[in-house]
């Protein structure tokens, strides 16, 4: 219970700080307009990333209001280099796929819904851009809040336990998981953009030996090598904090899900599409699934082939 209070306090303080930052930025703009008439209008930089999606990560790129974005994310099975493998680089293995739709309500506010194959997850997403990097560098970074609520659609029996189990029976809230992130990006020049994103994941219900909460630190970057092609990279690194752990001593036989989700690949973007082809270590697709339940170690050759396609419609 104490941990929940600490988490709530940290989240509230972070949000408060961001809103104050935003208010301060607006305050300065108004004062400037009142006192100096011919101040040039601050122009936002071009988007740091070509799409609102980079592998499984959200970027600070938002589209103008009344834009609909369809996203298809596909992850094949893990590549098995053993001689006796029969799944052709994971392509014939168990795959995961998500289809999602995002809609820009305002220029700085986007909502989305999606459905993912693994655990029959359904998700609701929200992106809110707090401040935007300007060309004059008066605001050096873009800051965005990102939230995902996931609903596990598995059969109720997943949470019921055995008939004589002492564990509580199924409740709808068992199905819920949450991911929140503050994304800070900077477009350094026409080729290079980077972002850093501290995040927090919470699962209402987990198996008995696992933790409900986890902090994470995510990084993402793109280097544009041609007008439409970019080299892209990202990493979600779990940050385990002792005071947040429900279980201090874990049975050594338990599978440890604490590997970072590392993704490396290429992006091709056109006027209305973005395509990603890449290698990734996690298969969850939703950020909370990638951060909480990844046991694949990218640097030990445990990775999968991933493909993303996005499509935009303007209204």
């Amino acid at each position, binding site marked *: 219970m104490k941990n929940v209070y600490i988490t709530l306090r940290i989240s509230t303080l972070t949000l408060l700080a961001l809103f104050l930052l935003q208010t301060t930025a607006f305050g300065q703009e108004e004062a400037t307009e009142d006192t100096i008439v011919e101040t040039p209008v601050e*122009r936002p930089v071009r988007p740091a990333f070509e799409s609102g999606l980079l592998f499984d990560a959200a970027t600070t790129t938002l589209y103008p209001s009344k834009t609909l974005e369809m996203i298809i994310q596909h992850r094949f099975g893990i590549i098995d280099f053993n001689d006796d493998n029969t799944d052709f680089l994971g392509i014939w293995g168990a795959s995961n796929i998500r289809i999602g739709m995002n809609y820009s309500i305002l220029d700085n506010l986007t909502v989305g819904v999606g459905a993912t194959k693994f655990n029959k997850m359904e998700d609701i997403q929200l992106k809110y851009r707090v401040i935007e990097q300007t060309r004059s560098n008066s605001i050096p970074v873009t800051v965005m809040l990102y939230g995902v609520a996931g609903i596990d659609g598995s059969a109720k029996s997943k949470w019921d336990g055995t008939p004589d189990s002492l564990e509580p029976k199924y409740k709808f809230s068992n199905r819920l998981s949450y991911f929140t992130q503050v994304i800070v990006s900077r477009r350094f020049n*026409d080729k290079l953009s980077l972002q850093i994103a501290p995040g927090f994941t919470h699962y209402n219900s987990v198996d008995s030996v696992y933790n409900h909460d986890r902090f994470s630190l995510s990084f993402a970057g793109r280097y544009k090598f041609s007008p439409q092609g970019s080299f892209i990279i990202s990493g979600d690194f779990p940050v385990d904090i002792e005071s947040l752990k429900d279980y201090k001593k874990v049975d050594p036989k338990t599978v440890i899900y604490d590997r970072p989700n590392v993704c490396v690949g290429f992006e091709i973007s056109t006027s209305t599409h973005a395509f990603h082809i890449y290698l990734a270590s996690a298969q969850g697709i939703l950020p909370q699934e990638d951060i909480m339940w990844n046991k694949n170690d990218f640097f030990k050759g445990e990775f999968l082939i991933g493909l993303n396609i996005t499509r935009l419609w303007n209204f």
Partner: protein
Amino acid sequence: MKNSIKLAAIICVAIMFVSANMAMAQKAGGPWTVPAKYKAMKSTVKAGDASINSVGKETYNKHCKSCHGAKGLGDGPKAANLKTSTGDFSSAKFQAQSDGDIYYQSFIGRDEMPNFEKKILDEADRWAVIMYMRTMKK
């Protein structure tokens, strides 16, 4: 007998080829009615500006090239599927148009030519594209 079959096959292929090309024949776009507000617009990016070959070229390649072609000749890979000819940006007729005329046709659009106002947001970036199209003059 074999020769007759070959001949028939060649004729069939020829008919299919001709009919496919007839179906694809494109009509030239009719004259544009450009509102006075746009007609009077002047480029804020001057010829020779550094943004023309960076921002202008990159934006053109991302949004325009697939139909209009790398050199504006109307030979992009998607052009053949359009009902209307995409025109030739290198022609004297196209280049004789005012900045405002080209701006309206490029970013407001009509029919098969999409609106790009929500895809190229910044005014200076739009002018950089137009000035890049000006460099395609033969």
